[in-house]
């Protein structure tokens, strides 16, 4: 089976280590997001895969063949940049057809391919226009079309949606995901936005300071982050973290924080008494109510001091006992002044990390 294999890649610029021994295998016909903050090393990784940058160490294999020393043009890899450039003197049609002409396809072959990709990206009616007559969103579609019109083994996309309007970004995410699936393509997409990964990617590789922290199915990385660092950087809004202490009382084991106490006796084999742990709770696993919630949930009082309405949802910022808490509600909720409520969660959603080594234990 064809695949892209990245093996022990390291790269430094001057004194700065940009990539530190990164290895991952990207399966054929899949959508992978390389997620990391600005400066994490994701663009450098893409450039090394494309061949425009040489790694200091490590190899790149495509379909089992070592391509590390091949020039970009011999790799059959297409790339879309964040700041794309179209040829201003050429029509949209010619811009898209250009990479095909370089490959010496016949006129009718070119015509067929350009029409097909323009159809998919909804830019057919723009084919006779010049770049200066396009909006930013239209121009980016043309740039994407120009990359996708080639039959490449791998398509690299470096934050192609970052500079676009919100609404176009929303539509493009859906289009890219559909296109990857419908046309059976291999996409490697770099992004600093967790939503790009969550909405499009089959797999996500989380990198920070040049190191690959975790690589796996997007769902697994999100719901089961390997350590505190991954849990903290991969999620929007960021996860709530609470300091806690494991305590034994009457034969039962509890995790105690400044805000709440949870019976964790059923995880006894994974936790040690008299030890510090960090508890992580995603903002959308917290809900609010006017009074204490009974049943199986854990509740504690908070003061809401800010709410952000995000479409049909609300991000609430709260304080309790000197701690900051973020709550994500799946409905619209507004406050004008600080408001006292209870927040609660189902202990099923609990993530517990070893405070010493950061690793997830539950």
């Amino acid at each position, binding site marked *: 089976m064809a695949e892209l294999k990245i093996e022990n890649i390291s790269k430094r610029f001057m004194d700065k280590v940009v990539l530190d021994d990164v290895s991952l295998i990207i399966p054929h016909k899949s959508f992978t997001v390389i997620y990391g903050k600005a400066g994490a090393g994701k663009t450098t990784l893409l450039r090394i895969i494309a061949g425009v940058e040489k790694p200091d160490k490590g190899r790149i294999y495509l379909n089992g063949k070592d391509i590390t020393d091949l020039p970009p043009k011999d790799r059959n890899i297409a790339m879309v940049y964040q700041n794309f450039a179209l040829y201003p003197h050429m029509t949209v049609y010619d811009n898209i057809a250009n990479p095909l002409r370089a490959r010496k396809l016949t006129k009718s072959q070119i015509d067929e391919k350009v029409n097909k990709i323009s159809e998919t990206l909804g830019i057919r009616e723009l084919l006779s226009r010049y770049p200066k007559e396009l909006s930013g969103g239209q121009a980016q579609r043309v740039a994407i079309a120009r990359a996708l019109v080639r039959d490449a083994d791998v398509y690299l996309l470096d934050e192609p949606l970052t500079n676009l309007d919100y609404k176009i970004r929303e539509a493009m995410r859906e289009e890219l995901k559909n296109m990857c699936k419908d046309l059976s393509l291999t996409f490697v997409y770099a992004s600093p936005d967790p939503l790009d990964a969550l909405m499009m990617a089959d797999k996500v590789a989380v990198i920070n300071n040049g190191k690959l922290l975790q690589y796996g199915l997007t769902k697994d990385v999100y719901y089961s982050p390997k350590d505190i660092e991954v849990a903290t950087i991969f999620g929007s809004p960021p996860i709530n973290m609470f300091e806690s202490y494991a305590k034994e009382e009457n034969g039962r084991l509890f995790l105690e924080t400044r805000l709440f106490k949870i019976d964790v006796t059923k995880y006894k084999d994974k936790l040690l008494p008299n030890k510090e742990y960090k508890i992580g709770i*995603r903002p959308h696993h917290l809900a609010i109510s006017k009074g204490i919630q009974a049943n199986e949930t854990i509740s504690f009082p908070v003061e809401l001091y800010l709410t952000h309405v995000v479409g049909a949802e609300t991000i609430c910022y709260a304080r309790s006992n000197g701690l900051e808490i973020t709550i994500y509600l799946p409905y619209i909720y507004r406050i004008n002044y600080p408001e006292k409520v209870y927040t609660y969660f189902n202990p099923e959603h609990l993530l517990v990390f070893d405070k010493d080594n950061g690793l997830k234990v539950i």
Partner: protein
Amino acid sequence: MSKITLKNITHIYNGKVKAVDNLSMEVDNGKLIALLGPSGCGKTTLMRIIAGLIRPTTGDVYFDEDRVTDMEPEQRNVAMVFQFPVVYATMTVYDNLAFPLRAKKLGNEEIRRRVKNMAEFLEITPYLNMKAGKLNAALKQLTSLGRALIRDARCVLLDEPLTNIDPSSRLLIREKILKWRLERKQTTIYVTHDQSEALTLGEMIAVMNKGVLLQYDTPYNVYEKPANSFIAYFIGNPGMNLIECSFKKVGSKIVFESGCVKVSLPYEFAKAVEKEASGKVILGIRPEHIKLSKQKIEDGMLGTCVLFEDMGVTKVINLQLNSTRIRVKNPEFEVKVGESLYVTFPEEHIRIFNLNGEMIL
């Protein structure tokens, strides 16, 4: 601080491109309003007209009772923050903040006090002695925001200040702007293409498209009662589902139908649609208002899941109902592609637009 009044503003570039089309609106003293629209809708042109960087082709701008249309930007006392952070790179953050105050010839003690307060408000005190050019984009933008807010301008114009900031810092700056709005009450226009920024920050939202002001209302009304189908789709994530339907009266109901989409509303409530001679309207419903069920339910319409997006905080399900594609948002529901589901549209959440997109119900 001033009330801003725009009267019949039209702006035409090069004698042919109409960027702003006969736009009138008022921003009350001390209010923060969001000016929302897609790129190219004319919102930046309008900003530049208020700032005095462009003179409108026709129409007038008033600050309180003063007609400022012919005034130069520096006479207007307007503070602006742009999409790309503008700082004096070789100056410290302190000097950047002090700059507009020194220009006003305030005393040193007064300047020190105000810079200190502003830096504390924005939580940039630790950076005061650093050169602004050395800061990351978010801190630069906070610095330029501070410079705009510190000077007691008649109004503050914020032109997409968060667009080029990474998502994690974006929330932080947004929070500062909201806090400013709640605590300081300064007339502010916040320009954005991002509906969530507009819904979060604006006390009122002005929605623009193609140079025209489409709706100027509270965030609640803009979201729940959009004046037309453009706003219905543009606001919301994803936007409102819009389905072209035919309608007919059946007993005490009006039945709306399109392929296997079939919804009925009480006649008394919905009879306004009968004015539509085409016999067709656009039915709108927001993705989060659609009810889902895996079991057959009364009046349920059968759809097939064609795309499932787990955004962590919520889930978006794309359903195909014959030729109609709808999006449903639900924080709990897990569905596989290819699986069939029943959906219903609760009556109270249905909106009806005519074929020109204007809201009827």
